[in-house]
């Protein structure tokens, strides 16, 4: 699987390259500043890109802007955005095209190598990965919602994991229940939130995030 990395700190850039190499990815290019992100992405058309939000020369949100632009130019290009901090504002922007193949994680999560590599794979496969911090903020913000209040504690737990982009099997493993129980919870959640049920993992997550993002 071919990857483009955009990260300005050499230490992190090398670390990411090493991790992805070790897990069988092929890092075709690792760029260090904002203006080279878009050309690299259009040139290589990688299977997935890992992009830092803040890049030189201005050290604002150039990486994110480049990622958003790349996705308008190459619709559905899978991009995993990394940052030292997560903002709901950015999550909303990344999700706005509702195309899937998007990830948004804190840089801290890279330290859990297995989970990080799994996230890269899921994004590359057109899936959705949201940082637990984003999800918990979304859930906290929506506690006032009438419908969300009707969910049981377990259902809220399932909703949170679902919004992070985990599959039924992963949720079942995390909560030590059967996959069947998970899909029952999910059906309950969807009927309580008044959303049409869907088997497609990706559409499901999008629906939940759209709901939470209001």
């Amino acid at each position, binding site marked *: 699987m071919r990857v483009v990395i955009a990260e300005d700190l050499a230490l992190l850039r090398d670390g990411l390259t090493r991790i992805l190499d070790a897990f069988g990815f092929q890092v075709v290019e690792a760029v260090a500043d904002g203006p080279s992100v878009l050309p690299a992405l259009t040139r290589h058309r990688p299977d997935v890109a890992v992009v830092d939000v*803040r890049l030189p020369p201005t050290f604002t949100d150039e990486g994110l802007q480049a990622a958003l632009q790349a996705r308008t130019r190459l619709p559905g290009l899978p991009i995993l955005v990394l940052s*030292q901090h997560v*903002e709901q*504002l950015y999550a909303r922007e990344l999700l706005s095209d509702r195309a899937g193949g998007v990830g948004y994680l804190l840089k*801290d999560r890279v330290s859990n190598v297995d989970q990080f590599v799994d996230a890269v794979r899921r994004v590359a496969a057109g899936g959705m990965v949201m940082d637990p911090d984003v999800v918990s903020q979304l859930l*906290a913000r*929506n506690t*006032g919602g009438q419908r969300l209040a009707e969910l049981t504690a377990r259902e809220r737990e399932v909703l949170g994991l679902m919004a992070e982009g985990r599959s039924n099997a992963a949720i079942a493993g995390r909560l030590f229940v059967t996959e069947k129980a998970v899909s029952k919870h999910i059906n309950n959640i969807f009927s309580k939130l008044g959303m049409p049920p869907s088997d497609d993992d990706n559409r499901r997550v999008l629906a939940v995030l759209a709901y939470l993002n209001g």
Partner: protein
Amino acid sequence: MGAVHSSVRLFARQWLRPGAIAAVQGLALALLCLTTNVALFALSVVSLALIPVFGIGFALFPVVTALVRLCLGAQRRLARWGGIPMATPYRPKPADAQIGTWRRFRWVVADPATWRDFAWLVPGAITGAACLLAFVLPAYGLEGVLLVPLVLYLTIDWYGYGVFWPMDNIVEAWASVPQGWFFLIGGLAVAPWLVWLHLRFAGFFLTPTRAQELALRVRQLTVTRADTVDTQAAELRRIERDLHDGAQARLVALRMSIGLAGKLMADDPAAARRLLAEAQEASGQALVELRDLVRGIYPPVLAERGLGGAVEALALAVPLPVTVDVELPGSPPAAVESAAYFAVAEALANVTKHSGAARAWIRMAHRDGRLVMAVGDDGRGGARPDAGTGLAGVRRRLAAFDGTMSVTSPPGGPTVVTMELPCELSSPRISPSSGTG
């Protein structure tokens, strides 16, 4: 027809309204100046004259001065109503200046504003009396227009109006109508000028001189600078403590765990692995703490998106719907931006903590060299900026930039916190990717 209509409206807006307001102002000023100025002048002279008499005036003069300042304060407020703002020129009262003490007397006598007030009393009474014209002229005109002279002429047979005094026949009685119009319109036209002249004249005496203005400014800057320095020092102290007890301590523990794990690697791999897992956990905690700390110092989103984007992000993090309306063609200086951000954040935190509101809104714009921010909610109201430390802190921090904060929060709501910061906007930040796109 339409043209007549609109010219009538124009007349009403340009002459009638300002004239009528000035007439009322003139009456108020005349009454105030005539009654109080004369009395205060007499009191001042008497109290000054009584200084040699057992020093009675020594205690009395400060009392009279307090009274003078009270009354002239009312005149200054009236002037503000007339569109001529007048700042208060007095020096601040020393802490232990009780009535009857030497310090009190010295404070009053040494302040040039006291003597300028005194100098104003007699001229003020005279021009104040002239202001009576602003009211009397239109009122007299109204009498003629409303046919009062005609009615009186017909009923009591002896009356005079305008140039006919007394009126000899019915024609002269009828002539009060055009004369009335003349007085009414002329009076209304002249009234604003009379009031304006009086207030301008008053300005020579009642507003601070250039030197006093500078002294006031220096005093204000001293206070805000001291506040700023204190706040900065407290902030640095808090950051130091957070780093010392938080991230720094965790890094120390981290190094110990890793070092120990390295030692145990050969003999007890299971224990070493456990230690490494702990180390990873601790490093994660350290990162969380650092992230929170950074957010408190200068929020990353502010650096990345500027004030508008940061406030938008702020609104998203609040557990109630917040409408954001930002209209900033450029970005303020970084220090102002940061102050504005934290001010809005504090106001918004107050909304979520105390208001019980269902929704809130934030408006932000740059007008006349000022960044104007308003945070409102539909909650229960009754917010008092002097009660909690939150809004008072905002006011202090804004004051460092000559900014102001005002709160309107009647019981039952709604609450609106309005903040203003004088600043210039720099040209809009150029997004690096938008240029090449």
